[in-house]
């Protein structure tokens, strides 16, 4: 009992304690704030990638794509674990306007909006037709024209604050999309000056997926038009990708495994047919596997950040070690007294480890509390800094980031809290053992001098 009383009194009465508490609080504050923002960014990025392709993706490495997809799509739709299925064409293309000399490289994405909006987050990414995604390719200004959905960064300007400056309704831009049709062997289907296939579309909507590379490159057009434009309509009707979403409650791993089983059976049934060799380049993956090239670098940065914070933890350990070492050095007399009245080594260790734990508890609580408070107001603070000083954490005119993520994760808070206390226990271990192993007569005689 005396151990905890003494630990508490030492904690309250020694001014140097404030230094240790402040160090722990600062470390916890930094870790909570930065990890929350980083985790939020990574989480948002993952979710955006998930929404972009659906739960499961069957995709080909080849621009040629693969055929015989229709019976497989029908088969999938009949499965109880499948919510929606959307075949997709993805091809490189050029975008220009009538009478203009400029052109820019784009990714032509052919989808059926009725299916694609259910299999992915496509519907929610639309600006004008978000409530009626089936009409994504029907321009508001003239429903008889064939529309296209353009990536938001290609067509909508942004303010310095990063806000998109949308028009009340889509401006009637006429856009010409060109593609280079390939046959099933990967060779141009046409020769000479006729090797390019072009078609005119009218701007009907823009799509904001939140993924910079997508929003700056993609032009969505109707699936059948994309197949025709890209030469994927004959002699074998082909697509490059099938996006699948699972019903709620179906685990990703289980759903993907089932799709893989069905796909292998489908491939076996069609491999010997013309163009069946194109199945060799097709993989069935979860959205995480499919988008790993994009997600992995960010996750790697997150890991690097955790490693950096581990170093911060080591600094915390060292600060607590130094503070406790100083306290133990100045408490020789007390240690001698405790040992002379029969306090065991373990008891003396607990006095100083108790001090370290209290330092950890108060420091971590202060840091976590301050961190949560700061996160709660982080966007208001950034807005204020931007208004008064013109400073932004990220230049919104450059980076496609909206609010700073500030969603408090209780698991993160608990982990950092626990880690701070463990760091304090580790930091206090050597000085506490040093105190516990002191010979009473040494310290008492020295203090009598």
């Amino acid at each position, binding site marked *: 009992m005396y151990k905890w*009383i003494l630990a508490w009194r030492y904690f309250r009465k020694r001014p140097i304690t404030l230094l240790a508490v402040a160090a722990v609080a600062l470390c916890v504050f930094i870790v909570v704030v930065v990890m929350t923002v980083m985790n939020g960014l990574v989480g948002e990025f993952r979710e955006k990638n998930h929404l972009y392709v659906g739960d499961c993706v069957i995709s080909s490495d080849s621009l040629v794509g693969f055929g015989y997809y229709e019976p497989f799509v029908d088969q999938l739709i009949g499965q109880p674990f499948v919510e929606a299925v959307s075949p997709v064409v993805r091809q490189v293309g050029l975008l220009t306007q009538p009478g203009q000399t400029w052109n820019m490289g784009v990714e032509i994405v052919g989808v059926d909006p009725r299916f694609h909006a259910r299999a992915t987050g496509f519907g929610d990414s639309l600006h004008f037709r978000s409530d009626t995604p089936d009409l994504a390719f029907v321009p508001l200004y003239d429903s008889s024209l064939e529309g296209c959905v353009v990536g938001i960064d290609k067509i909508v300007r942004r303010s310095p604050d990063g806000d998109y400056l949308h028009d009340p309704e889509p401006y009637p831009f006429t856009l010409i999309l060109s593609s280079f049709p390939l046959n099933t062997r990967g060779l141009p289907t046409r020769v000479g000056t006729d090797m390019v296939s072009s078609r005119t579309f009218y701007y009907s909507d823009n799509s904001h997926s939140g993924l910079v590379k997508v929003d700056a490159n993609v032009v969505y057009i109707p699936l059948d038009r994309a197949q025709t434009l890209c030469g994927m309509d004959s002699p074998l009707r082909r697509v490059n990708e099938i996006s699948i979403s699972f019903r709620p409650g179906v685990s990703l791993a289980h759903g993907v495994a089932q799709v893989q089983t069905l796909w292998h059976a489908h491939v076996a049934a069609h491999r010997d047919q013309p163009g069946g060799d194109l199945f060799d380049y097709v993989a069935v993956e979860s959205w995480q596997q499919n988008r790993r090239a994009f997600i992995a670098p960010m996750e790697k940065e997150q890991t690097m950040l955790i490693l950096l914070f581990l170093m911060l933890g080591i600094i915390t350990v060292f600060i607590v070690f130094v503070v406790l070492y100083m306290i133990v050095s100045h408490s020789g007399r007390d240690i001698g007294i405790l040992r*002379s009245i*029969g306090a065991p080594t373990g*008891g003396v260790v607990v006095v100083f480890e108790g001090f370290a734990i209290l330092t950890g508890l108060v420091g971590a609580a202060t840091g976590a509390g301050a961190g949560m408070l700061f996160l709660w107001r982080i966007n208001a603070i950034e807005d204020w800094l931007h208004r008064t000083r013109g400073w932004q954490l990220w230049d919104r005119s450059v980076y496609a980031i909206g609010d700073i993520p500030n969603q408090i994760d209780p698991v993160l808070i608990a982990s950092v809290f626990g880690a701070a206390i463990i760091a304090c226990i580790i930091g206090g271990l050597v000085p506490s053992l040093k105190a516990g192993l002191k*010979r*009473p*007569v040494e310290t008492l005689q020295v203090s009598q001098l």
Partner: protein
Amino acid sequence: MTAIIKAREIHKSYKMGKSTLDVLRGVDLSVKKGEFLVIVGASGSGKSTLLHILGALDQPTKGSVEFDGIRLNTLWGRKLDRFRNHTVGFVFQFYHLLNELSVLENVLAPAMASTGTLGWLTVRKRTINRAEKLLEQFGLKDRLGHKPYELSGGERQRTALARALINQPQVLLADEPTGNLDSRTGSGILESLSTLHQAGQTIVMVTHDERIAGRAGRVIRLTDGRVQEI
């Protein structure tokens, strides 16, 4: 009466650079149960060192101490802590109270150290009663909640005395208990020690003041690290 402490051929040396300082040079000593033994000697004669060895705060370089039939050099760890906690009670010249604790808490500290948290909760009430009685006996009833630095020298030493007695030790070891007090306050402390002795408490006291020795049942002198009976 039987001897409770038997010290044989106690030597204690300290290394001082290349030379060795022999503080105790073959001390033989026995203390009987219920005895009030005073050890006198000049400053630096090794009185405190001998007392520390008898109370297992220090170890002799050579020789052995038997306490109620137990050789102290065989004690270590928990047994040694228990010996310091239960068997002997120390009173130091400079009181050695913990400034972070109140008077009552200082007196209770040895009792707390001898029990775990759960054990303490069991004996808490009884022990607090005993501590309060001891402090009342030493005239500190109104000082229970005070911190040591708020007390006079005499009050501090009486608190230390109460602390030494809380676990009802077999032997009370007092190292110059009046050395830091004026003569009137010192007399009060000696009066308390005499009362305890009359109640059957075994006491070994170290002092350089030979006038105090008059109160003792037996006096020995330490000269050049050796014992002379007076």
